């Protein structure tokens, strides 16, 4: 039914390999950036400053409510037009496709991560905070040693879910010509018209990625089960 022998012809295997590598690069770079963005947003929101809180709410709601594809297109086609011409030409001459896809994906995932972390932190009862203060810890110390470690554990399953979403969302970068796995898949499809064979390979490759992430998350979940009563 399926014939995958075409993979050995005309360097199609190499195209797939390049696609997988670009997808992984996109996932890792935007994932690390997303964690930074998520922590920054969570911290800003936790601070007792109304302006910060409002800023974070606007950022989070934009990224939750606008399709990721649109966010990527806005960064690629829209944002550079606002820059001075010299800077714009410099950006366009480089690998601006990968750069803007990474920025868009990182901000999107970062917004979701900040929400997950916030719910994780909110799950820790306020009495823990009071107990920490009563033994003389400062606000920062109680956050660092008591609240954060427990909050992260509660948020862990949701965070790993975000990792899966980010992995799959990376395929949207093909809309602006990033040569990731789905881009390469469609390119090979267009060259060979072996639609079903080509997409079978892509499906398997994406599954390997997501199943590996799921296995990793189960490993973590077993090692870091949230203490009972939380």
């Amino acid at each position, binding site marked *: 039914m399926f014939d995958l022998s075409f993979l050995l012809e005309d360097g199609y295997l190499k195209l797939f390999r390049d696609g997988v590598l670009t997808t992984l690069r996109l996932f890792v770079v935007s994932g690390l950036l997303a964690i930074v963005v998520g922590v920054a947003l969570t911290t800003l929101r936790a601070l007792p400053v109304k302006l910060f809180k409002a800023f974070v709410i606007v950022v989070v709601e934009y990224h939750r409510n606008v399709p990721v594809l649109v966010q990527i297109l806005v960064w690629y*086609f829209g944002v550079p037009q606002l820059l001075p011409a010299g800077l714009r030409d410099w950006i*366009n001459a480089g690998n601006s496709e990968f750069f803007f896809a990474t920025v868009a994906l990182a901000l999107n995932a970062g917004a979701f991560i900040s929400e997950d972390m916030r719910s994780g932190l909110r799950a820790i009862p306020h009495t823990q905070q009071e107990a920490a203060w009563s033994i003389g810890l400062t606000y920062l110390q109680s956050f660092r040693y008591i609240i954060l470690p427990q909050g992260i554990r509660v948020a862990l399953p949701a965070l790993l879910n975000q990792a899966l979403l980010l992995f799959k969302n990376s395929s949207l970068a*093909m809309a602006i*010509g990033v040569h990731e796995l789905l881009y390469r898949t469609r390119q090979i499809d267009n060259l*060979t018209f072996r639609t079903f064979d080509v997409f079978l390979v892509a499906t398997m490759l994406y599954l390997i990625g997501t199943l590996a992430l799921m296995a990793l998350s189960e490993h973590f979940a077993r090692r870091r089960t949230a203490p009972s009563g939380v």
Partner: protein
Amino acid sequence: MWQRHLAAALFATLGMTGFAHADQLADIKARGTLVCGTQNASEPYAFPDAATRKIVGFDVDVCNALAKGLGVKLEHRALSTDARIPELKTRRVDVLAAAVAWMPARAAQVDFSDQYFVAPIRVLVRADSPVQTLDQLAGKKIAASEGSSSAAVSVTRLPDSNLLTFHDISSAFLALQQGKVEGLVAGQLILARFANEAAVKGGQQYRLLAKPVFEERWGVVMNKGEPALREAVNKILVDYDRTNGLQDSFDKWLGSKSVYKFTRDYKVEPIKVQ
């Protein structure tokens, strides 16, 4: 748990390709309708008419000619570029007149009729670009529309360029306008229109590189192993050309009666291997 996910995904993928097989020409005649697919947004080949909202164009005329020639009713399907080949392979459409250019690897998967359209694929650059020849595109970014034959051809004919494909030709042109890419690879016709529109509007101007990248030859596309259908389609296309039906349609959409003013310098004949 994950084993079950894997099994489910496998079955979902395998299930897509089961279909019965019979002589398709006999099926079409028995059914009394020809299901003919075209693209859905590719002016002037198959695109929505602003007034009637119906899909019209050069390729739709080919579908009409085929149905008329077979003596059956036309059931027209407007498809996205991505959906063209899967729709054909799963036999939800009988034939495609959907801007499909002949290429050797493609011909190994589907059958092509005689050519009914031949046109050069060329490169559009900004008028002030230093690029004069195809060689000078080496190491530069070029844009094309995803799934198009221009994109496929660029991979082999312009291997030293960095090809970026976009969802449709307008976003690819936008990338050229914004200076994100050095050139836009597409059919001569659409490129001429972009250049003309810019000339009328003013602002950034464009020019075509002199040498074509490739000469694309479109055929009606059918499933493999349907010799009767293929023979019937070829006969209808030759008649369509001989009785000036093809010429009238060409004049209307691409030639003297259109904004493009192109002249037809090919005829319906078997596609020559390039």
